[in-house]
């Protein structure tokens, strides 16, 4: 694991701020009717996404849920093409056919946002199987929500990854709720990493019970996921949890009856971006101007993305019927 230098840290800050501004703007234009369908914001969880993506080695793979905008941006997809997908435009990363929940870029080894809870877990196992089959050192990081640990796909996929010794980092982004249901109301295990124990033999081999990371600290996530990737590459599957918090509703229009305003404010006060900014200013002299510039650039990048998306064409009738099958 390379120790991040100042430039790297600034780049993480840049990504986190870009995601935040991007998401805020998405919420705004959703209200204006420019984005349709469901919209799941990543606000509050930026450190988990950015730290995780930073830990990936060049040939590693990442796959996630419908809460995927942050991963797409951290992975380096063009914000213009991501915003265009939000608006259902032909220039979107998925040609306007996937929408906000189905961003992907094969070129970036980003295997998508997936909208059936748990549905992408077996896909992650399959991608990892390819690496095993071809004897390639590639780890697949599979992100999921806490709620996804309760569905059958979770059990079948984790079990198979242990039996077949697949190089997967199973990463539970524990934002404490699945829609409106708090973790302890839906899951017998309160700590997600405990679930690794069901996939170990009596000698403790199988899925390694990984750490519970502070998902609001990008550096802690980076370190923890880097170690997990190293472990998976050398040994096999590992289950890691990142403790985080979703500061907005589950999706747009969530009345949030399941939690108090106080609770949200408490987490908001210790949000990942403010905290990281504080760390940077305390540890690097005269960094404020760099940070301020990054803040300004993020707004600029989002403005450009929206302008690009708005001026992009809709998919055509030809696009409507293309790519159902490979030729």
């Amino acid at each position, binding site marked *: 694991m390379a120790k991040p230098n100042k430039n790297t840290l600034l780049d993480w800050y840049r990504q986190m701020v870009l995601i935040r501004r991007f998401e805020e703007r998405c919420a705004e234009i959703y209200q204006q009717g420019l984005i349709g369908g469901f919209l799941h914001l990543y606000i509050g969880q930026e450190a988990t996404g950015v730290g995780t993506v930073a830990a990936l080695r060049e040939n590693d793979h990442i796959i996630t849920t419908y809460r995927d905008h942050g991963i797409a941006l951290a992975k380096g997809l063009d914000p213009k093409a991501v915003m265009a997908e939000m608006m259902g435009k032909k220039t979107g990363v998925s040609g306007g056919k996937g929408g906000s929940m189905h961003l992907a870029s094969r070129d970036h080894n980003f295997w998508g946002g997936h909208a059936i809870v748990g549905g992408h877990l077996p896909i992650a196992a*399959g991608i990892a199987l390819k690496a095993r089959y071809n004897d390639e050192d590639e780890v697949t990081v599979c992100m999921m929500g806490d709620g996804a640990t309760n569905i059958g796909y979770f059990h079948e996929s984790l079990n198979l990854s242990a039996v077949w010794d697949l190089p997967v980092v199973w990463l539970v982004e524990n934002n404490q709720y699945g829609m409106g249901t708090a973790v302890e109301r839906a899951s017998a295990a309160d700590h997600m990493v405990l679930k690794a124990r069901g996939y170990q033999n009596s000698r403790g081999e199988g899925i390694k019970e990984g750490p519970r990371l502070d998902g609001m600290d990008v550096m802690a996530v980076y370190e923890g996921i880097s170690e997990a990737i190293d472990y998976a590459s050398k040994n096999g599957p590992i289950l890691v949890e990142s403790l985080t918090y979703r500061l907005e509703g589950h999706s747009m229009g969530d009345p949030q009856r399941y939690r108090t305003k106080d609770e949200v404010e408490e987490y908001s006060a210790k949000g990942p971006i403010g905290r990281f900014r504080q760390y940077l200013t305390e540890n690097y002299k005269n960094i404020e101007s760099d940070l301020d510039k990054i803040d300004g650039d993020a707004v600029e990048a989002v403005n450009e993305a929206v302008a690009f998306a708005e001026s992009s064409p809709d998919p055509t009738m030809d696009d409507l019927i293309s790519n159902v099958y490979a030729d």
Partner: protein
Amino acid sequence: MADRPITIREALSSALREEMHRDESVFIMGEEVGVWGGTFAVTRGFLDEFGEKRVRDTPIAEMVIAGSAVGAAMAGLRPVAEIMTINFAFVAMDAIVNLAAKMRYMFDGQFKVPLVIRTTTGGGKQLGATHSHAPEVIFAHFPGLYVAVPGTAYDAKGMLKAAIRDDNPVLFVEHSTMLQRRSPVPADDYVLPIGKSDIKRKGDDVTIVTYQKGLEWSMDAAEELAKEGIEAEVIDLRWLRPLDLEPVFESFKKTNRAVVVEESLPMFNVGAEVAAQITNECFDWMDAPVQRVAAMDIPLPYSREIELAALPSPAKIIKAVKEIV
């Protein structure tokens, strides 16, 4: 080389074996495919021949069998995943429908899914309701997926090879009571086109549209009908998707009558689709309503005689033909 009669089981085995020799990225996975040799003995000897890497026994976990095969296919392998019987494919419905069939379209062509899911279908074996379905038509509902339903050894071999070489997901359905049926198969490599039906018997009086077990019943019925001077043209669909009805329309324009025969349940089935399309395409040639022969609209029972009574039969087909000829 001369054609040699082999069983459907042998045809499937040799197609798999030849494709695995041809292409290193082809591998098989599923319950009991390895040590056991395949529940229906299709992969007997494969573990010794190809080793554990390419002949992978799985847990009893259909969601991840189908789902991980989708992932492996997206990543560049060519999995042939086996779901022991189609009854258990219901457990993997999401993986087949939402993962396999939609992955390409939803991301606008960024991924391809060169996947074959082999499974067996069919009732009539006294296994009770949960194990006695022929529900392949359900899977034909979904664009993005192909559904193969071979009825002869020759077709089974050529179609399985086509399915393995194609870059799209194929649900490859084999009939569990037909694995011992023999027909001549060339020793040389051959591949049949995807989505082409086949005229299995020529005739001028009525068109019988069918597949798989229905093909067997229909051919028997056609022999009986011939004794009474009624010549049935029997068209084997071979694929439910892509569905190739051109030969059906052509035949119908000659016979002006059709019976659709299948083992699946009678509502929302192949017969409904084919009858509707014939009505649209051949209305001016129509001398009688299209007849449909399918299983009775009940879960299948265990007891032998009543189970068989619920399934189609040559006698039921003959009766349906006589309604309109």
